């Protein structure tokens, strides 16, 4: 469903010259599964997911979503995905209903199906009580629900959540995770990035541990634990990251 091969991305930086955000990342995600990307801040998670959502273009490598290439067929890719991240806010001067309706229309849904779909979504996500509340007046939890509704209004086969729970309180985060888990039940292909171990452990079917633009380890939770002989994900995570830092530092000092 999602195939990422040797994806690279670098930025121009005045002081350091080329700054590598992704150094050849590869992974696959399949329908009915939640693929977790776990990594500290600055690991490159957002960059990968922004490339998948076609907002950024990679410098090298390929990525395809549902058979469409993210570089050459961006508009087809965007029809296949629902993208939600900490950076995708809701409009202040639009009500919840208007916001979801607007995106539904941008996805090309016709009036009747869109209406039915929205009624269904608003009931399922318990959003009916703030249907006509402007974005500026919503609480964080309400905004998060609107974002979810906005991302899935066109019933896309692929969903991408980038640090979707950051800044949410426990209750709202829990509700969001529940919605994500439900999407898996509906057979969607879900990519979920986070820096919180618990979320990855509880939610994800496969986990990729990412650091400094590289995937250090990848597999189901059990596979990872077995391979590295470490039952605790947190310990595993720190070991991998420290080890990687040491290698990079060594390379750096050799140069």
């Amino acid at each position, binding site marked *: 469903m999602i195939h990422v091969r040797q994806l690279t991305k670098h930025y121009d930086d*005045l002081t350091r010259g080329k700054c590598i955000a992704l150094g050849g990342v590869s992974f696959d995600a399949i329908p009915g599964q939640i693929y977790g990307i776990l990594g500290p801040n600055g690991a490159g998670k957002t960059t990968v997911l922004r490339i998948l959502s076609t907002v950024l273009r990679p410098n090298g490598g390929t990525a395809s979503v549902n058979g469409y290439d993210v570089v050459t067929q961006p508009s087809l890719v965007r029809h296949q995905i629902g*993208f939600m991240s900490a950076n*995708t806010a809701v409009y202040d001067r639009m009500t919840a209903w208007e916001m979801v309706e607007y995106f539904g229309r941008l996805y090309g849904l016709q009036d009747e199906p869109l209406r039915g779909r929205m009624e269904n979504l608003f009931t399922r996500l318990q959003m009916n009580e703030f249907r006509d509340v402007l974005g500026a007046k919503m609480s964080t939890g309400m905004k998060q629900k609107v974002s979810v509704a906005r991302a899935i209004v066109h019933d896309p086969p692929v969903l991408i959540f980038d640090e979707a729970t950051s800044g949410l309180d426990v209750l709202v985060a829990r509700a969001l995770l529940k919605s994500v888990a439900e999407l898996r039940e509906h057979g969607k292909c879900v990519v979920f990035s986070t820096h919180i171990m618990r979320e990855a452990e509880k939610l994800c079917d496969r986990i990729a541990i990412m650091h400094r633009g590289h995937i250090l380890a990848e597999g189901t939770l059990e596979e990872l634990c077995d391979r590295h002989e470490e039952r605790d994900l947190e310990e595993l995570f720190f070991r991998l990251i420290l080890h990687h830092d040491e290698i990079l530092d060594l390379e750096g000092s050799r140069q």
Partner: protein
Amino acid sequence: MNWSNVKLILMREVRDQLRDRRTLFMIAVLPLLLYPLLGMSFFQVTQFMREYPIRVLVIGSPVSAELPPLVEQDRFAGNLFTDPSTARLLQLSLQPSKAAEAGTPYDPLEQARRDMQQGNYEVVVYFPPNFAAQFARFHNSLLEDKSGESRADAQIPNVDIYPNLAKDASRAAYRRVSEVLDRWREEIGRQNLKDSKVSPAAAKPFEIATLDVAEIGQHKAALWSKVLPFVLLIWALTGAFYPAIDLCAGEKERGTLETLLSSPAERIEIVWGKLLTIMLFSMATAILNLLSLAITGSFVLSQLPNLGPPPGLAIVWLLAALVPVSALFSALCLALAAFARSTKEGQYYLMPLVLVTMPLTILPMAPGVELNLGNSLIPITGVVLLLRAMLEGNYFKVLPYIPLVVAVTLACCWLAIRWATDQFNTESVLFRESERWDINLWIKHLLRDRENTPSVSEAMFCGVLILMIRFFMSFALPMPHTFRDFAVLAVVTQLVVVATPALLMTIMLTRSPAQTLLLRRPPLIAPLAAVLLAVTLHPAINVLQTVVNRVYPLSEQFAKELDRLLIEPDSIWIMVLALGVMPAICEELAFRGFILSGLRHVGHKWTAIILSSVFFGAAHAIFQQSIIACLVGMVIGFLAIQSGSLLPGVLFHVVHNSMGLLIKQVAPTLGQEDHWLHWLMRNASDEGQLYHWPVVLCGLAASIAILLWFQRLPYARTPEESLQEAIDQQSPQWLPS
């Protein structure tokens, strides 16, 4: 592009803006309040100004039976004013005129200066102490002796006025006081004539009557035609700027831009949706302001003679001009706003934008500036001048300029929209983060992180640099007088202005000079085909040149001068080398080398070709040449890209230039029936078309065939061009199942 998405985005943005209190205030409330308030304060200020008296010091006001009264009590005499009631506005202080004391000569100028500097008076009038006495002697001599021989000792001294002309108030006072003194002198003259028994008509045998042929409507038009375009432009800009900042920088700040970018809407659809919204608000702001101004203005001006509400037809012209002006401003604002990281940063860009557009708006208000060829080519100025002429009712005079103004405005709009779209396609702009900017670091970055070929901005910079050097060189260099001067000048200009910047920038800013300057071997037949194309295309270009010269005639003196320099060269070979080969090599290196290679990173072959040709055209000194050069530049750019080499272009350029030069040599002899070129060309002493029509058409057909051959050559695409082609091949209509 899917227009239903554009409409969807447009509707949303409009609704969004209408829910924003600040926007509503700017576009609706402010204009409704502004002009009535301005009108009110105008009235108050004028009342205040009218009441404000002018203080005049009169030293030694003469009183004598022979003189008509100048001062009555503490005012100038009422009969010295057109409107006697205005006499009270001149507040007089009277001082007797001192006679010079022994030893220290009395200096009235010194006294006046002291008084003026202390700010006690706006103007000082000085009558010498002996004024009245001398006048009496003069008057008596006038009565006694009619021959006028003994009047020499009856010289009347001057009356001195001391204003400070650097001060507005003093200048106004000076005008009024001299008017009064003039009338007084006239009165004296009349009196004198009467006393000498001469009819006053002897001095003033007739009156000069001023009969203004301007109708009242024209006065109105003249005033409104200056005010309305200015107001229109200022508010179109303001109305575009604030929504643009909110819709781009504001969305970035609030984090909704990424939401929109990850939706299926294409970037171009987003740009158009936002652009149309901004345009709508720009136009609404301008219209509301004009309406409010017109209503308030008609009330205010109906109080003044000869003026009244603006002519009705003005509305039509204003609305017609508003559309392109708004489009241009909106696209500019959109691009700037897309570049800004935050609304705060966006606000900073207002001032530079105003600084650039304001002179273009104010230039037409300067006295004597009228719509002509040069002015109509200046982006906003042309529109304002056209609008002014329309408001004044000079329709037929400006008719020829309408296509030009429209074309220039449309071209600017197109460029601005392209720029805005590019901003939305540039991720470094969309996801710009604050970074420490440092000129040293930046230069280091330019040199260290250079690519094989220059970037788009480096190419643009090179083009602008060449134009600027050319501009300043044109002042520094002397006018050529002989052919030798001319040839040397041409070679130096080419080397210094065109080749040097391009080559230096190539060495410093690119990794692969060969790739940048297209120093590659072309396909075998390509050079030959290019030479052939130059020959076959020449008749058609000549026809075009004739048309251009007819539409925009060269100044006769200039044309003669040019011909004189070119017709009698010292040596034909030096001429071809200096004016044919040299420019071809230098210009190709710059325009098809560095600039075109850089511009190709835009992703569209033809955009790059057209932009580089515009630079190429602009780099020609004579406007008539520029138009042709621009078109020829497109052909050469096409050859360069298709063959992947500079050589065919250089050869085309050499042959093209040389043919033009050589034909000038043989042209005068073409009239003879037995001339060997008679079958090809006709006598062109009238600067008309040179070739026979069948030759032109055959040449054109052959040229098209050659161009089609070039079109079929496989050419190397830049990564951006390949990407763009792939994106364009996506099926445009895709609906979810």
